[in-house]
């Protein structure tokens, strides 16, 4: 038997260029002065607040006003927003080439987090570069009023700096805000447009948008997805746990079933979350949907060619401020997700998606756990294991739909390991019979 290799290389292909947020809390207050080497000759900013996630797209035309060639450009994000930053991506405007962006220093005096953008080539003095910074934030929209009656309309409030964020002087800028996706909204369409000239970095004026938003603001406070690989059963067992909160306007007073029943068929546009839909792989079998106190009977499974759809209702309709937790799981044939690479002798497991997109919900935290087949590790044990398994845990915060991309895990696995379970089981029974044979031939009586 070959000695099983102890080292596993986890290869995670991250399709999107996102960075994990770590709160580096500064111990002393330090104000950071970014040298004014650049001037933004033009900024075109588009803010989309028509969904729960606030997506900002900033096209920047920057000019090098320094006397040396430059590569680095700093971008500030207020700490308050930075903790809710879901992703930040920087691309060249035309070629869509992705520039590296990384977390830089934290200005603990102004409470600003800087991001350092590194271009792939030096920009000469007086040279210009056009690039876009795309960011997405969660929890940026607050319901106002904070409490509404059961069939009331929900309004949201969006606050931002009207002049955008930049550490450099901006000569010209234009800001567009999309606040609804609904067609046919009157009063200058569905946009608000601002145009300004010459703004200094610290200029601030509050941008305040108060608009109707008749959808549930769903937040998954925590999600855990377990993928358990079994070569022996040729099976991938998936189990996902969710902890959901309705972050919309809270229910004013108490819930009235009468009012609910009277309005449920007439009042379609509601912030109440009544039924959900989850997409599972096509060959998903043994699907279950439970919560802490048992099976939830209000679910329906629909099989389609390429996918299986789990429609379910929570035990109660979710109103603003209410919570619900549940978990579901299923089995799928492993073959669809596992490939064997003959050259490297390694298995490659493809996790179809980092998250399973759930309506328009945002995820505060997602944990993905991949439980590799039984090997020499004692990290995790499950049914009928004699040795233990390797467990890969990936944690990520502020996750949104853009993060639902597949990734790969590769590992080594000896075929002989497949025989472990039957061997252990037969040894166990053999010992049992042996003991009973010995026992039946023993004499325990005192005297005759």
């Amino acid at each position, binding site marked *: 038997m070959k000695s099983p290799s102890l080292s596993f290389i986890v290869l995670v292909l991250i399709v999107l260029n996102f960075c994990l947020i770590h709160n580096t809390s500064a111990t002393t207050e330090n104000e950071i002065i970014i040298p004014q080497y650049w001037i933004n000759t033009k900024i075109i900013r588009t803010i989309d607040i028509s969904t729960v996630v606030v997506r900002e797209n900033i096209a920047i035309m920057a000019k090098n006003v320094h006397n040396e060639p430059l590569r680095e450009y700093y971008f500030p994000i207020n700490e308050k927003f930075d903790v809710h930053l879901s992703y930040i991506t920087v691309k060249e405007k035309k070629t869509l080439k992705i520039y590296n962006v990384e977390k830089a220093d934290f200005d603990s005096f102004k409470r600003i987090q800087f991001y350092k953008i590194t271009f792939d080539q030096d920009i000469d003095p007086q040279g210009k570069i056009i690039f876009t910074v795309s960011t997405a934030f969660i929890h940026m929209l607050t319901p106002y009023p904070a409490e509404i009656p059961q069939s009331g309309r929900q309004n949201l409030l969006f606050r931002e700096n009207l002049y955008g964020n930049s550490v450099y002087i901006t000569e010209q800028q234009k800001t567009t805000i999309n606040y609804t996706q609904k067609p046919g909204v009157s009063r200058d369409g569905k946009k608000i447009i601002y145009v300004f000239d010459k703004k200094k970095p610290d200029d601030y004026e509050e941008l305040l948008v108060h608009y109707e938003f008749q959808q549930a603001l769903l937040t998954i406070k925590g999600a855990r997805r377990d993928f358990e690989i079994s070569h022996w059963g040729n099976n991938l067992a998936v189990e996902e746990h969710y902890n959901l909160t309705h972050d919309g306007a809270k229910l004013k007073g*108490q*819930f009235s079933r009468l009012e609910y029943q009277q309005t449920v068929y007439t009042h379609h546009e509601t912030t109440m979350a009544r039924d959900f839909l989850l997409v599972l792989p096509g060959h998903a079998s043994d699907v279950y949907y439970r919560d802490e*106190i048992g099976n939830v009977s209000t679910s329906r499974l629909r099989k389609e060619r390429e996918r299986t759809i789990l429609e379910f209702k929570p035990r109660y309709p979710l109103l603003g401020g209410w919570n619900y937790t549940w978990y579901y799981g299923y089995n799928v044939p492993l073959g669809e997700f596992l490939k064997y690479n003959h050259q490297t002798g390694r298995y490659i497991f493809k996790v179809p998606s980092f998250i399973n997109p759930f309506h328009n919900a945002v995820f505060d935290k997602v944990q993905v756990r991949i439980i590799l087949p039984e090997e020499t590790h004692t990290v995790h044990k499950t049914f009928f294991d004699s040795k233990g398994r390797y467990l890969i845990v990936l944690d990520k915060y502020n996750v949104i739909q853009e993060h639902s991309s597949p990734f790969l895990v590769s590992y080594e696995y000896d075929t002989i390991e497949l025989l472990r379970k039957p061997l252990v089981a037969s040894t166990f029974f053999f010992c049992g019979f042996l003991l009973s044979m010995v026992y039946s031939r023993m004499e325990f009586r005192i005297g005759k």
Partner: protein
Amino acid sequence: MKVLGLETQNISALLKVVILGLIAAVALASRLFSIIRFESVIHEFDPWFNYRTTRFLVANGFYEFWNWFDERSWYPLGRVVGGTVYPGLMVTSATIYNILHALNFTVDIRNICVLLAPLFSGFTSVAAYLLTSEIKDSSAGLLAAAFIGVAPGYISRSVAGSYDNEGIAIFLLMFTFYLWIKALKEGSAYWGALTALFYFYMVAAWGGYVFIINLIPLHAFTLILMGRFSTRLYVAYSSFYILGTLMSMQIPFVGFQPTRTSEHMAALGIFGLIQIIAFVEFARSYISSNQAQILFKSFVVISFVGMLSGLVLLTLGGYIAPWTGRFYSLWDTGYAKKFIPIIASVSEHQPTAWPSFFFDLEMLIFLFPAGIYLCFKELHDGHVFLILYGITASYFAGVMVRLMLALTPVVCVTSAIAISRLFDIYLKLDPEDSDNNSVKSNKSVIDKPSRKGDSSRSTSSPSTNKSSEKKKKSEHFRILGFDTRILVISNFFIFLTIFIWHCTWVTSNAYSSPSIVLASRQADGSQYIIDDFREAYYWLRKNTDYSSKVMSWWDYGYQIAGMADRTVLVDNNTWNNTHIATVGKAMSSPEDVAYKIMRRHDVDYVLVIFGGLLGYSGDDINKFLWMIRIAEGVYPNEVKEVNFFTPRGEYRVDDEATPTMRNSLMYKMSYHNYNELFGGQGQDRVRGARLPIGKIKLDTVEEAYTTENWIVRIYKVKKLDNIGRSLEQAGEFESGKKRRKRVKRTN
């Protein structure tokens, strides 16, 4: 003689193991209806408490469990769980859980709890086999195992999910009895000690252990009266009693009861008596004069009378606790109704209706007397035991529905003896050849334990004597006519088939509903699950503060604690009648009185069950009379049952309902907003009544949540008014009514 290269005795041993294994498997499988129909979930009320404590035990370990003070029940009193619980069930599941996890079987504790009762039913079959084999023979044993495996009287309390003490206790009961018979037969302290050990397990598991500690002394006493005192009886009983009592006192909930309460005094008395008799027997072996004989006999009688009167005096003096109310209610069925309404209010404490004997035992109830008759015909020690067990258990089963459970095992055993006797006679294929082939002679081989050392012993043991005796008898009753045999055998074959069919039908229809989930059929025939209870409990669990106090009738206490994880005022433990009566008073009083009670008890939410919309008859309005009665028992001046009845003595909720009824908190909470649902006048489908027209106004509580089918309604108790008005005044102000100015009146 050899078959397939094996000795026939080996084959029959193998067959027996296989058959017994299959019977145990059937016993387990027939209890799984509820899992297949519904899900793997804990049923009903008490199991939720057991489940909750088991989870605590698994999570925190045994010592934490032992010292657990549960501040989340009986608010504000709390409950010392470790000291008021029979821990056997929880410890059993936790042990299984730990063993499985040590072997890397990561089974969820819920599944262990759900499947524990079916698993132990399998064991019960084996125990019934052992007991019956000990008394008759192994073929009767197999029949008894099969009967107890499927008898609805036992299944009713041991389906998957019914995680209650009885689930393991019946196995322990049967096994203790088996060990007792064995100890008595062998006269060995080893078996006596084993009996004591399982008696201890039984004490740890179920309050019904009192049955054992009275039945075994009764058996011993009867044997003494029959003049069958022997050293075997002395050794078996003494070792059992001493060890058993000492061990049972290790359970905190039992403590010193074995020496202090009347329920245990019979066992103590018999222990004393048996010592005296043993001493006398011993002395008599040295002295043989007739005078001495008379002297000894009178000594025995005098000391027995002396002990008895001593016992009475101690009881009167208060050193020994008299019989508790629950036991009185066994002698006088009307007792509970008069003095302890809380016991009488439980449906399973009602006297048994006669059809339920047939429902739960089918043809066994007819074979039971036949079995008892056969026991009388032989009347060995074991048969005396069965007769005593049968007589006492059938009395108790008649008094209380719940005790049908204690009767079922003995009915199965005696019926098995009767049927097996019948088969002994009618199935003997070759009456001429009675040495090898017959069931009988196989039996004598079977009865011998396979270990070598036993063979010499069992030749002298009574079982072999008995069997040879029986063999003679059966030859005497030999039936020669083939047609007669066919007739009888096929007849009984049909009976047995119908029995199995009946048992399966009863199990699937009557005993496999989890009762926290209700099932109904939709118009297209598909199953529709009514899951209102869990909807409400989960809502409480997720959307209320963790420290909220929920007031409900005690029936739902365990479920709220288990599923909603919130503090409750009263629960199914019912140890404090006053506290329950206080809740009853709050429910049956007008709002202002109830509000004071609720404020005093920090109540945040009130939960009521209302079946009016769906026709669910087990709702709170139907239980309301018991709340009133229990409240009246403690607060006779404030709650009066009479006021809830119409002048004609009817209990009504419609136009004719009395003002007391219509003003009670329970009535208002049940029907709040109900008229509006119907757009004018609500229709109560349980009581078939049309409600009085008009809006029901609630000032002190507000509707917090009502489930889909209106079965569970949760109300939030309002806080005191900010500017010091009474909540009624505040409510009137809110609804736009102006307060009449006092100034006007003075003008």
